[in-house]
């Protein structure tokens, strides 16, 4: 049962795959962004997991000196804080794009957008002027 | 020192001519004068190199070094000089002819025509004087690029289709095979300089050398060796002066010139003689000679017939190179000149017929001898020269090639040469017979009236026809120069 001991890695793998699958399989752009978020979150978990030292505490020097105190590694937390910010920015930008796409195409379903784009292509090729 | 200046000048003069031509685009007379002056200057420059080369000097100049051992450099040696002399002399003649033809035929975009013509000549000079394979390759490609607008000059769908074939085969073979060969040579030898006696001997295994020979010969698509010959008939969509100068002289001769040059200065005759695939290439050249001749007989369009004849004649020169004897090289070099004069005459005549009577098919040319006596006489002279009959210059080069085959012990090749001479009678002379001995169809053509092409064109084709005879009477200077290729003066 040793593999159960690393359950946090299993969660990471499960979330990563779930998110990744959603990004690939879903045609709805919002759902894609949701999937992307889950995917990124799984990586946050990976980093936080690796910072944990068993028995470790928050890396704050307690009153009266730090003799014999075990700390968790704070670096992964700091790193992932940056990654979270990046994730927020990506999400915001992705959603902003979806808003604009919705305005331009009136839909946020990938296949419908593709149909519209292909129709536009055939129209252009049959003599229509590119805008 | 003056030699190197002359080389640079020979490259630049046509380009300066381009500026003049474009500058004078609104004044046709001035524009044509610029062309003629440029052509004359070029010929004088090239001719000025004759004396030093005959006395054994090799004027050279290095422009720049792109990579170590890879430079743009020029060196004048006898073979290149022969080629440059022929091309520059015939440029003058062709320019004279073109003035009559282009105006008589009311072609459009004449400025573009003259400008690209000059660019093509500049790159021809670059090929002729190239001091290493890299330089030659560059100018080879420039020549292809600069002649594309000339081939597609008329702008019709047929012209574009022909142009694409032309461009595709020439660029394709040169990049896929020739460039590869150049790079392999560079990697194995470390230099690409043309050196008397070759640079490859002892530097690579037999397999590699055999492969290189195949790559070089097939990589030079301009030599129109079968199976890479299709561009030449395709290029016949071009205006006649283009076909005449470029596809009888500059472009195709650049091809066979490259093969001769590679044989002598990259492989060296001694090494070449030992290569196994040389035999195969020799037979391929022989097959090219015969097959192209047979195809030529079946063509009714005069220009196409001449195109196939060119393919056949070019294979003579490849054959000469592949014999790997000194006489073969000398014969090849002489054939460059002889064939140039003969074939340009024939093309001039085809163009003159087109301008004067708008006829392109041989079957329509009955009784043309009475309408255009000068043209048709010149045609007959040119045809006899190509066939190799006395008293025309073509005799000498065929003679040399025959001797070379004998010397190399390839008796079968003599048979091929004889047979092809017969075939060339079969495809060239019927036109003369048609013109002089058949009476025209009175219902279709009406009463024959004397109607020659524009005077300038007639003058040009008469000049080249006389050239064929002159080369028969005075072949010595040429022979002397050609002999210098294989036996340099020390």
């Amino acid at each position: 049962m040793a593999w159960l001991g690393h359950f946090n890695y299993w969660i990471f793998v499960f979330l990563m795959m779930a998110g990744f699958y959603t990004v690939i399989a879903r045609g709805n752009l919002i759902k894609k962004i949701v999937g992307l978020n889950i995917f990124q979150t799984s990586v946050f978990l990976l980093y936080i997991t690796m910072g944990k030292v068993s028995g470790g505490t928050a890396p704050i020097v307690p009153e009266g000196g730090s003799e014999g105190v075990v700390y968790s590694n704070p670096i992964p937390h700091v790193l992932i804080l940056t990654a979270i910010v990046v994730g927020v920015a990506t999400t915001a930008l992705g959603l902003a794009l979806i808003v604009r796409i919705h305005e331009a195409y009136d839909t946020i379903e990938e296949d419908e957008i593709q149909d519209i784009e292909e129709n536009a292509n055939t129209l252009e090729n049959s003599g229509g002027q590119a805008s | 020192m003056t030699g190197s200046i002359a080389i640079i000048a020979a490259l630049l003069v046509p380009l300066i001519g381009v500026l003049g031509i474009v500058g004078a685009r609104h004044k046709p007379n001035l524009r044509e004068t610029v062309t003629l002056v440029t052509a004359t200057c070029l010929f004088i420059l090239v001719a000025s190199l004759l004396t030093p080369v005959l006395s054994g000097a090799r004027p050279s100049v290095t422009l720049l070094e792109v990579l170590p051992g890879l430079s743009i450099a020029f060196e004048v040696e006898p073979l290149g000089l022969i080629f440059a002399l022929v091309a520059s002399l015939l440029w003058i003649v062709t320019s004279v002819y073109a003035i009559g033809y282009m105006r008589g035929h009311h072609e459009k975009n004449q400025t573009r025509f003259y400008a690209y013509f000059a660019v093509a000549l500049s790159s021809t000079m670059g090929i002729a004087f190239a001091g290493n394979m890299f330089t030659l390759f560059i100018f080879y490609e420039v020549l292809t690029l600069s002649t594309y607008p000339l081939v597609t000059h008329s702008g019709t769908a047929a012209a574009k289709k022909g142009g694409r074939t032309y461009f595709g085969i020439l660029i394709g073979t040169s990049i896929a095979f020739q460039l590869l060969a150049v790079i392999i040579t560079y990697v194995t030898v470390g230099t690409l300089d043309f050196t008397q006696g070759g640079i490859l001997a002892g530097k690579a295994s037999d397999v590699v050398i055999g492969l290189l020979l195949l790559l070089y010969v097939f990589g030079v698509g301009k030599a129109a060796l079968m199976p890479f010959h299709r561009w030449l008939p395709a290029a016949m969509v071009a205006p006649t002066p283009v076909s005449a100068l470029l596809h009888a002289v500059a472009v195709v001769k650049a091809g066979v010139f490259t093969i001769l040059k590679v044989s002598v200065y990259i492989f060296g005759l001694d090494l070449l003689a030992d290569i196994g695939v040389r035999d195969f290439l020799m037979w391929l050249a022989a097959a090219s000679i015969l097959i192209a001749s047979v195809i030529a007989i079946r063509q009714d369009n005069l220009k196409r017939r001449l195109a196939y004849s060119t393919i056949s004649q070019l294979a003579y020169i490849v054959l000469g190179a592949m014999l790997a004897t000194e006489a073969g090289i000398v014969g090849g070099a002489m054939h460059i000149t002889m064939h140039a004069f003969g074939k340009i005459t024939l093309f001039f005549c085809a163009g003159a017929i087109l301008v004067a009577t708008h006829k392109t098919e041989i079957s329509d040319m009955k009784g043309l001898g009475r309408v255009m006596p000068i043209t048709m006489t010149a045609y007959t002279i040119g045809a006899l020269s190509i066939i190799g009959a006395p008293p025309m210059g073509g005799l000498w080069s065929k003679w040399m090639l025959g001797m070379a085959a004998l010397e190399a012990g390839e008796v079968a090749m003599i048979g091929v040469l004889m047979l092809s001479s017969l075939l060339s009678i079969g495809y060239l002379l019927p036109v003369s017979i048609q013109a002089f001995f058949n009476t025209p169809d009175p219902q279709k053509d009406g009463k024959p009236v004397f109607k020659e092409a524009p005077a300038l064109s007639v003058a040009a084709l008469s000049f080249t026809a006389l050239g064929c005879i002159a080369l028969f009477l005075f072949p010595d200077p040429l022979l002397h120069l050609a002999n210098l290729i294989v036996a340099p003066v020390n």
Partner: protein
Amino acid sequence: MRHHLVLRVVAKLLIPLIMLFALYVQFHGDYGPGGGFQAGVIFGAAFILYALIFGLDNAQKVVPSGYLMALVSAGLLLYAGVGFAAMFKGGNFLDYGVLAGDFIAGQHLGILLVELGVGITVCAVMIVIFFAFAGRGNGDEEDDDIATSPDLSPDSSPNSAREV
């Protein structure tokens, strides 16, 4: 919004507290958990809450979008300015040690200023994003800066994050 009386009252009570907490997180960041990112988000949340309860127009009266853009820039400039100041004082870029008299004081000053810059930018960016999305479709079509504004947030993060 008149009938959401409870919400309005509670929000009015909470917003100052949220802001105060944000400031605590901000300025306590160099001793304990906290820092510019967290504080910025919390501070921005206060404004967003205000906008949710009292409407976008009222919120935009409090912080016009022109100011917001200025704030986004200002935070980043403060951050980079500290870096340059360190450079002019003879240290490396972002070397806080040289900012004040002694090393420790310099580190304090440096991290406080940098985190303040981060906090301002993050807060402003959060509000900008919210305004941009919320303002969309309200006849506010021409103001579609949303495509470019979010990318302002990560750039303040990279270098400071490691020093938190």
